[in-house]
C-alpha cells in the first residue's frame, strides 16, 4: 500500500492529529460545507435579527459549530477556505453590517481551533469545550472591532454583546460540534 493510501486510511478512521490535509476530498468538502454553513447562517442570523437585533446568538452558534466541525474533519487549509468562502458571500449578501470583519475572524478562529485540535485528542467533551473557547474568543474579538468601528456602538455595549455571543457560541457549539461529529461518524459518511 502506498504512503498516500495509508495516510488516507488514518485520516478517515481516527481523529489523528495532523494540521494539514490537502487531498481533493478535504478541499471540495471545505467549499461545499462552506456553502452549507453560509446558507444555514443566513437562516439563523435572520431569526436572531427578528428576536433582538443587537444580539447574535443562533448565528454565533451556527458559525462556531461549522468552524469547529469543518476544521476538525478536514483540517487546514480547509477550515480557512470554508471560513473565507462564507465571509465573502456574507459580505455580498449583506448578511451582517460587520460582515467585512468575518474575513479576519474566520481566518484566525479556524487557526485557533486547529491549534487546539492538534494538541488534544478531541475525544472528550472538555477538549471540544477548550477548542470552542479559543475559536469564539478569537472570532468575537475581531467582530467586536467591527461593532465598535462600523456601528459606533459604545464600548460597554460592544463588550457585553460580544461576550454574550461568545458565551452562547462556546456552550452551543461545544455540544453541537461533538454531537454532529459523532452522528457523522456513525452514519459512515466521514
Amino acid at each position: 500500500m502506498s504512503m498516500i493510501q495509508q495516510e488516507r486510511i488514518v485520516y478517515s478512521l481516527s481523529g489523528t492529529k495532523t494540521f494539514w490535509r490537502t487531498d481533493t476530498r478535504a478541499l471540495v468538502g471545505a467549499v461545499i460545507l462552506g456553502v452549507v454553513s453560509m446558507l444555514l447562517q443566513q437562516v439563523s442570523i435572520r431569526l436572531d435579527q427578528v428576536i433582538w437585533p443587537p444580539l447574535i446568538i443562533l448565528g454565533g452558534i451556527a458559525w462556531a459549530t461549522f468552524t469547529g466541525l469543518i476544521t476538525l474533519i478536514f483540517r487546514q487549509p480547509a477550515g480557512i477556505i470554508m471560513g473565507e468562502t462564507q465571509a465573502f458571500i456574507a459580505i455580498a449578501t449583506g448578511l451582517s453590517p460587520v460582515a467585512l470583519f468575518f474575513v479576519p475572524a474566520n481566518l484566525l478562529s479556524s487557526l485557533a481551533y486547529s491549534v487546539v485540535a492538534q494538541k488534544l485528542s478531541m475525544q472528550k467533551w472538555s477538549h471540544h469545550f477548550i477548542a470552542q473557547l479559543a475559536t469564539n474568543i478569537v472570532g468575537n474579538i475581531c467582530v467586536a472591532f467591527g461593532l465598535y468601528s462600523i456601528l459606533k456602538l459604545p464600548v460597554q455595549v460592544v463588550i457585553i454583546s460580544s461576550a454574550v455571543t461568545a458565551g452562547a457560541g462556546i456552550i452551543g457549539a461545544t455540544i453541537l460540534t461533538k454531537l454532529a461529529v459523532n452522528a457523522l461518524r456513525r452514519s459512515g459518511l466521514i
Partner: protein
Amino acid sequence: MEPFVEVFLKKVAFPGDEKPALSGIELRIEKGEFIVITGPAASGKSVLCHCLTGAVPHFYPAFQDGFVRIGDTVLSELSLPRIAGKVGYMMQDPQNQLFSTTVGEDVAFGPGNMGLPRREVRKRVREALEFVGLSGFENRLPETLSGGEAQRVVLAGVFSLKPEFLVLDQPAAELDPAGRKDIYDRLGELSRSGKSTIIMVSERPEELVQHANRYLVMEEGRIVRDSSSPPVQGPYPGIPAIFRKKQTVEPGQEAASLENCTYTYPDGRAGCLDTDLRLFRGQMVALMGLNGSGKTTVAKHFNGLLRPASGTVRVLGREISDIDLHILCRKVGFLFQNPDFQIFAGTVEEEAAFGLKIQRLPPEQITDRVEDVLKGAGLLQMRKVHPHRLSRGQRQMLALASVLAAEPEIVIADEPTAGLNYSQTCQIMDNLARLADEGKAVLLVTHDVMLTACYAHRLVAMHRHRVQLDLPVSQLPVYTTELQKIGLDFSPAFAGWSA
C-alpha cells in the same frame, strides 16, 4: 491471449464491516464488450464499480486482496488522476459530477487537467458535445440543464478524455424513459464503434438488450450469473392490472379535490392552470406527464405546500385555506422522491417516530405504531441502525414508514421509486397498493408507464400545466394515440400484457 481487462478480487473489505463487500470476483473482459450488471440492493455492484475505477482503494480506503488490470496497468499502482485517462467513471447523480460554471468549461475539465495544448482541448470539447448531441451548449449554466441534458454533459466530460474503459453506475436511473433511451443509444454507439469497452450497472437490463452482449448478476458480493442473455425479471406482481378485479370496484367517498386551481411560481413560471382533480378513498390515481407539465405542482396542493392563486382545495370535506400545514400533514402523508431530504435522526426508529413526536402522542402509542410500520417496511431488524447506513432503497422504505406512522387518510407519493431497483420498487408499490385496499386515497406521481398499468386504478395525464385526460386504467388501450400525443407511450406496458 490476455483479455483487455482482468479482475481478480479474492476479497474486498471495508474497515469496521464484518462481512467482506466483495469476494471471489474473477472477471475477464474483452475489448469492445458492453456488460450490464444487476443485482439486489447492497449486493456489491457499486463496490465493484469503485474497484474497477480505482476509487477503492485510493479514495475509499479498504482492504483489497487481488488486483484489477486494465491493458497493462494495475490500478492499485496508479493514483486516481493518473487512472483518469484510461478509465471513465459516471455515477448516478449528474449534478455532483459537474464542477464548472459553464458546460464548455466542464467538458474541458479533464483534457485541461491532462495539460493538453489549448487547441486540442477545444477540439475535444467540440467533439464530445457533438457526440452527446449538445453542440452549442458551451455557455449554458449546469443548473439550467434538465436531468437528461446534465447526464449527457457528464458523459461528454468523461468522453473528452477518450477512456478505453467506461464504468457507469446507474447513469440513467433518475431520468425519464426518453432520457434513458437517449443515453443508452449513445453508449451503444460508442461500444459498437470499438472506441470503448463498457461496463454498466442497471436495474433494468431488459432496456439494454439492443446494445449489451453480456449480463452479470451479483448477490452478496459475488457474481452469481454471467450470461449473454439478460436475467428475466418478473413483471410487477400486479400485472396485468388491466384485468384486475379492483378496476371494477366502485371508488369510495371523495377524499380530496382541486377545483379550478391555478398556480404560478413567484419567478413567473406556470405551475398548473385551471386544474380539476378528485381523489377517492380506495383508489390509486397515477398522475403522469412529461417533465415540467405540472404534476408535482398539483401534488403539492393537496398538503398545502402550495396554495392556489385561484380555485379551491378540499381535503376530507374541508377547504384547506383555513387549516395549518402541520395539522393538514396528519391527514395527508407526502412521500418525496428523495428520502435524504428528510432523514436526520440517529437511528431508524427515531426517524420513523419523528412525526408522531411532533404530534405529542403518548410514548407507548408511538412505540407501537413505529414497530408496526417498521415491520411493514422490513426494517424492524435494523431499528437501532443509523439511517445513512441503509441502502438507498431502504432509506426510501424508511421515509414511507415515517409517512405511514402518522396514519394519514391520503397519501401522495412523488416519484417514490425513482432510482430504485425492481424488488425495491415492488416493495414500495405493494405498500401503496395495500393502503388503497385499506380505503385510503393514494396519488402516485410517476413517469413509469409500467407502474401505472400495474398498480393504479385511474390515470390522470397532464400536458402543459393542464389535465388533459382522466380515465380508468382499464380504458388505457382505447386512448393510446391520445396519450402518445402528449408524450406518454404505453406500448411497453401493453407488450408485456399481450405476451
